[in-house]
Structure formats: C-alpha cells, structure tokens
C-alpha cells in the first residue's frame, strides 16, 4: 500500500516535470497535450475523495505557477479529480479494481473512462483559457485537437504498463 502511494507520487512528479520542462519545447502546431492527466487516470480506486482532490489541486497549482496559466490547471485538474471516482464506478463492470488500466478494467471500459476524463479536463481548461479571448471555432478546435493528442500519448504510455 505504502509503496503504491510512492509509485503514484513518483509518476505524477515525473509527468509534471515532462509537462513543465519538455513539452513547451515541442510544438505540434499550437496544440497542447496534457500528459500529466495520465497520472490521475491511473490513480487507485480506493483513494479517498480527499486524497484525489488534494493531490490534484497541488499539482494544478504547481503547473499554474510554472506555466503562467493563472488558475486554469488547478481548476480543471481539481474538477476531473472530483468526478473521477463516480465515473470509474459508473463505467467499470467489475467490482473493486485496484488500479484503473486496460488489464484490470478491460480495453473498452478503460478507454471510455480515460476519454471522458480527458474531454472533461480539456473542455474546462480551454473554456477557462477563452476568458481572455472567446471564439467558438478556436475553442472547439483546441479542445478536440488537444484531447486527441493527449489520448494518443496516454495510449502510448499504457503500452509501457506491466
């Protein structure tokens, strides 16, 4: 149990560092994938709502202060962390899965769960971003293009799970 927590904190820290240090240097047109969402997607199902909220909020603040995105990461990340457990319960056909993944949940229900989380997160994030400048086509394009980019990266990371 203890090592499980350490493992997840380590994954989160690693993905946050990637997001802050490496991703701004790589440019896919002007699309932003949010790879750090993968850390949240695979958080264990037994974690309490409080643990989910707290970890997501702190991670969001770290991103906000490093990437100059006032409140955007903390709000959207906290939001998905809040809806993650109900979503998991709703979409999972099996009882008590330790850690969400293709193996434990089955291919289809895991990716349904992941896609929903990604869409909720990206919609919130880009909606908040459009406070500065609102244009519906830009907003929709950014939500879907970035969601797709994040999904592809998550799919890639999931291949490396043991």
């Amino acid at each position, binding site marked *: 149990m203890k090592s499980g927590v350490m493992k997840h904190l380590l994954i989160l820290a690693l993905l946050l560092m990637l997001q802050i240090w490496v991703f*701004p240097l790589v*440019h896919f047109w002007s699309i932003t994938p949010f790879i750090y969402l993968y850390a949240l997607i695979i958080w264990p199902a037994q974690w309490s709502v409080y643990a989910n909220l707290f970890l997501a909020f702190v991670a969001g603040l770290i991103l906000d*202060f490093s990437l100059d995105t*006032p*409140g955007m990461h903390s709000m959207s990340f*906290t939001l998905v962390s809040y809806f993650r457990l109900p979503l998991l319960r709703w979409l999972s056909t099996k009882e008590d899965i330790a850690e969400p993944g293709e193996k434990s949940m089955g291919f289809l229900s895991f990716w349904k769960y992941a896609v929903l989380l990604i869409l909720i997160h990206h919609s919130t994030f880009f909606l*908040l*971003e*459009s406070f500065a*400048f609102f244009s519906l086509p830009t907003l929709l394009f950014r939500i879907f293009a970035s969601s797709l980019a994040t999904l592809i990266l998550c799919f890639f990371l999931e291949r490396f799970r043991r």
Partner: protein
Amino acid sequence: MHALIQFFLRFGHVLLFVLMEAIGFVLLVQGNDFQHSVVFSSAARVNGQLYEWREQTISYFNLREKNQLLWQQNSDLQQQIARLEASLQAYQIQEQALKPALDFDFIHARVIKNSVSMLSNYFTLDVGSLDGVEKGMGVVAPEGVVGIVKACSPHYSVALSVLNVQSHISCKIKDSDVVASLSWPGGDTHTALLQELPGHLMWQDGDTIVTSGFSSAFPQGIAVGRIIESYKAPGDIFYTAKVALFPRFESLDNVRLMRRKLQDEQNMLEEEAMP
C-alpha cells in the same frame, strides 16, 4: 453539534472541492495581476534559475542557423552603414542639425522560457530590474518585434508575446502613413492580423509592416512582418490584413530590449498637461 459533524462528514468533500475551485477562480480572474506577482510566476528566483539551466543546455541546438542569421544581419547592417555614410557625406549636414541619433537604449537578453501553444503566451528573459529592465520595454529579436515586458523581478522579467490575444502593437505599412494595430487571433504562430485598415488607402500584398513609433516601446521602423492577403467583411468599411510574422516564435533566443531615453521626461510632461 453531532448534526454538524455529521454534515461535515457527509459534505466535507463538496466543501473542499468548492473551496479549491474558488481559489483557482480567484487566480484566474486576477489574470493580469498574476503576471505582476512575479513572486509566484516564472520570473521568481528559483523557477528562473531552473529555466536558465535548461536554456543553457538547449542553446547549443540550431547554432548553425543562428550563426547564419547573424551573418546575414551583420552584412545587411554593414551595407546600411555604408549607404548612410555615403548619403551623410552627400548632404553635408551640420552636426547640430541632427537629432540625437540614438534615441533608444538597448539591453541584450536571452529568452529562457517561452510558450506558443496557449492563447495567452508569455516568455521569460534572463535580465531584470537590476539590469535596467522596466515594465513596458519593447522586445525585439534579430528578425523583428516579439513582445513587450510585462513584469520584472530583480534578475528576470516576463514579456507579453506578440502571440498573445491581449497583445496590441501599433504598426504601419512601410513607406506610407497607414497606421493600424497588430493583434493575434490565436492558433497559427506565423500569422497575425492588422485590423481597421482604412479602405481608401492603397497597399499591396507583400508590403512590409513595421512599428509605427507611436508607442514608447518601439522606435519607428522595426520590422514586424509582411502582408499576405487583405480582405473586407461585407458591410464593413475597414480592411483586415493577414500578416506573416518575421520572427520564429518557437525558437526565440537572443533578443534586445528597447527603451526610449527621454521616456520619463515625456511621461512627466504628459501627466502635467492632463488635468
């Protein structure tokens, strides 16, 4: 009391969730102030130092291209000097008749952190108030205008990129009096828009856009971009032009900061004149 504890046990997570979202929202609506609070932003000491290390590591890439660019610019400048000297001799202007030739101070800086993928993009520079940087200074890359300083700490400063939906830069079409404001609609990092161009004045696709010199951030005539196409919405009296920006914002590196020398004097005078 028991009921209260029961309530918190039941709805505690809702309250925590709402509280966290509220904190996030406060940060969001403060928006611009967030940039000013350099303590928290990327201009803070620790963050700045980390970004500086990263910059030092990655600055070895594209050295060849950058060298090429500097050579190009150098030879252009040499040509320009030669031309200017020739015309100076030709005109034989007396020294006192010349206006102070260099009206602007320059500070050299390096971009240590940069973003182009958001709608509100900023970049961080490795110079701060101790180096003489002030809010409102213009930032220029070898190819052209890239942004305006928004906040500075003692050692670092953060600039609002041209690729920011809040950025407006006063520009004009080179060799004409057509002045318009350059803004960025998001998306493509290579094009911006020049809006409210008066319809009766003539220009052509391919015309160069330069700074107008009307704002204190930039002297007149610094390159910005080139018009690709212009169009007019039906019923509109103004034209909008698409401008291909000269700098490559994805790989900003060496830049100069500019400040008009007599700006303080002008500000003071203007303040005095205002009731």
